[in-house]
């Protein structure tokens, strides 16, 4: 009886071991074959394989991978590891906590300033990449009326999705525009309080995409997102464009991360994003205005 149990024990132990070995083996093989497929028989045999790790603002989630694909097609020795698309504040925090990356693109000057203060980025490489607009969206086909910014106080609107200003730049821009109406207490859009008239309506989202999703699923009637978010989410539509003087200019700065060992490639990729005509087509489709 116990012999059988022992056999079972050994069997299980070995199968777990074998399984994990197989999986490890698989993983190893896969990366090896990946490398094989990307190692080009190019005219420049000296080109070293480089993998760039990019940290980018959440709103770039759909557009940037396409540009990266384009870049890899032109520079076969450069690939990208899974790009992190989070709230800019989270990315800066993550960099500060020791995550390694080569390139940081945020959705506000403020978050890039924080990264500079943390000494996470190389200031000399910093440049402005894109402009964007802030819009109010509703679920596609919804009958919510929103004619001016004052309508946030309207009784027909019970839930408003806004990015959490602590980390989400889109939330800060939204709060700045609410501040212009006296509905938010801080003119930086951060660390303030919502006025009582809208306090109970605000639903904070951990990134701008989440705010868009809250609206798309109908959990919130309206939300403050970027124009570019329309083109990466199904199910939302613009109901109002926030005037650009109601908030700070929406600019996406980029910089090479301090300690990156691939500074030249990272810089080249940034330049590619800004100047390549095919990349321009992608940015245009996704609603980013290249600066």
């Amino acid at each position, binding site marked *: *009886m*116990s*012999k059988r*149990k*022992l056999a*079972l*024990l050994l069997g*299980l*132990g070995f199968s*777990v071991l074998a*399984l*994990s070995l197989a*999986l*490890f083996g698989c*993983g190893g093989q896969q990366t090896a074959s990946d490398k094989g497929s990307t190692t080009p028989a190019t005219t420049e045999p000296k080109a070293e394989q480089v993998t760039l790790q990019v940290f980018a603002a959440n709103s770039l*989630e759909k557009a940037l991978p396409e540009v990266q694909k384009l870049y890899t097609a032109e520079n076969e020795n450069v690939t990208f*590891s*899974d790009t*992190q698309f989070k709230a800019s504040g989270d990315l800066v925090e*993550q960099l*500060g*906590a*020791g*995550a*390694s990356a080569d390139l940081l693109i945020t959705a506000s000057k403020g978050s890039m300033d924080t990264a500079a203060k943390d000494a996470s980025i190389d200031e000399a490489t910093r440049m402005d990449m894109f*402009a964007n607009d802030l819009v109010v*969206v509703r679920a596609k086909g919804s009958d919510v009326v929103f004619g001016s910014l004052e309508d946030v106080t309207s009784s027909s609107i019970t839930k408003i999705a806004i990015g959490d200003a602590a980390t989400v730049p889109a939330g800060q821009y939204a709060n700045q525009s609410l501040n212009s109406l006296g509905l938010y207490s801080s003119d930086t859009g951060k660390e303030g309080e919502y006025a009582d008239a809208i306090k109970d309506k605000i639903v904070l989202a951990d*990134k701008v*995409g*989440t705010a*868009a*999703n809250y609206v*798309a*699923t109908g959990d919130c009637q309206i939300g403050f997102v970027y*124009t*570019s978010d*329309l*083109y*990466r*989410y*199904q*199910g*939302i*539509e*613009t109901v109002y464009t926030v005037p*650009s003087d109601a908030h700070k*200019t929406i*600019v996406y700065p980029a910089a090479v991360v301090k300690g990156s060992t691939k500074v030249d490639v990272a810089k080249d990729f940034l330049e590619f994003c*800004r100047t390549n*005509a095919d990349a*321009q*087509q992608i*940015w*245009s*489709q*996704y*609603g*980013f*205005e290249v*600066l």
Partner: protein
Amino acid sequence: MSKRLANTRIIAFSLAFILFITLVIALTMPAMADEKTTLSIEANTTVSADGRSASAEDVPFAINDFVRFNTGTAKAYEGIDYGYRFPMLDANSFAVVVTADSAVIYVPATVAESSWFRPAQQSEKGFTGEDDLTPLISMLAALDSAVSSGGTELSASQRQFILTTTTEYQFKGSLIDFGVEVEPEHYYVTIKPVEGTAGSRITEQAESASQTESASQQESGAQPAIDVQFVLSGHMLAASEVTVVPAVSGFASLQEFLHGIDYRPFWVSLRTSAVAMIFVFILGLLAAHLSLKINSRLKGVLDSFFTIPMVLPPTVCGFLLLVMFGNSTAVGRWLIDHGISLVFSWPAAVLAAIVVSFPLMYRTARGAFEALDPALLDAARTLGWKESRIFTRLMLPLAWPSIAAGTVLAFARAMGEFGATLFVAGNYAGVTQTMPIAIYFQWMGGHSDVATFWVFVVILISFIVILFINWYASHTQRFRQGGADLADDSFQLSADEGISALATVGGAGKPKGAKVKADKRR
């Protein structure tokens, strides 16, 4: 007999459960697929699944390579300011400049001279209909509505449609230039005020520009008089040259959906949990064994220490791990300096899985060890067995059913780990993105269909795990009941059975032990 009936019932129930889940998924899935693929089709116009091409019945031309450009750029190229410019596909592509109340359609000369496109003669006037422009606009509107994704649609409001075949078109105080080759082989639609001269240097422009910072960032140089909402571009071809593949539906769309899924989260989950389980299995058993042997006061403290990850929120575990191994604390930096850089990597995911699943293994193993009859262990000691031998040859086999169940539970817990993993390992597709993390991020990313798929997979796996534990428990129970005549159904082993087990274990061990001895003599 009744046992067999119970088994049949279990299987029947589980089949019913799986069927139910499948039904739920099947009912929600097509709805999602439809949402993505349904296109508004106007006037017998067919639009392809990818929204790139369109054709219409009895119309001699079709559209291919359609794109919608939502923004342009005001960037100068090599010092030359082109005003505000939107891309065009190439020199032979058409372009539609859409403003709030009108749309200027530029059709290149090659198309205008073709035999299959006959626009109205009154090209510069407002469009009246009854010619090839009607189907063209219908196709454009259908394509645009397929890709507009919530932006203003071409068909959203009454617009005046204007057709032009010349590359320069003056419109409401703005000069629209089509097919401007800004860079070699890259063409743009440029929009600038009529006063602006083409090719003016940007430095001159900057002098004349006296605008606010925001405005100058939006439109370097002078602001165009018309507000362009978006630009459409694509190729017009003879209908015979374009094949429009309409969106698939039903089973085919499900197949396409399953084909398009990234299955790496499954493998990451499996790999992470499997490796974590090796550690948890060994560490859990050793910790359980250790906690049995030490005195009672220390035992309580040690037991709390081993168990606490089970009651703590996973985010607390994640936070502590991040503090311990991250760059922001002295300890973390010291570890990193000594080559232990864990955070946001796959080993971190394994570590998180180990921490959260360890207590499950430890608790079940300890419980099983404690349930063993102490007389049995003493009996073994009187036979001169070493403690290690008692552990491996007596305690383990006797406690095996519970240990196995504990392992499977711990495995399931490791598979389901979310909070701590996200904290220390992050969300890197193919590296640390496990199934639970994939569910969260897919949903957040607007891919609720993919999230639903993973939810289904996780439910199925959890269900199989529980089913296995139940089956295994009932299996060993029956086995035990068959072996010894137990009065009650409890897990407690009777002394009789234990001793018989001891006898068999001893018997099985003997030849091997004898062999070792023989080896030693040599």
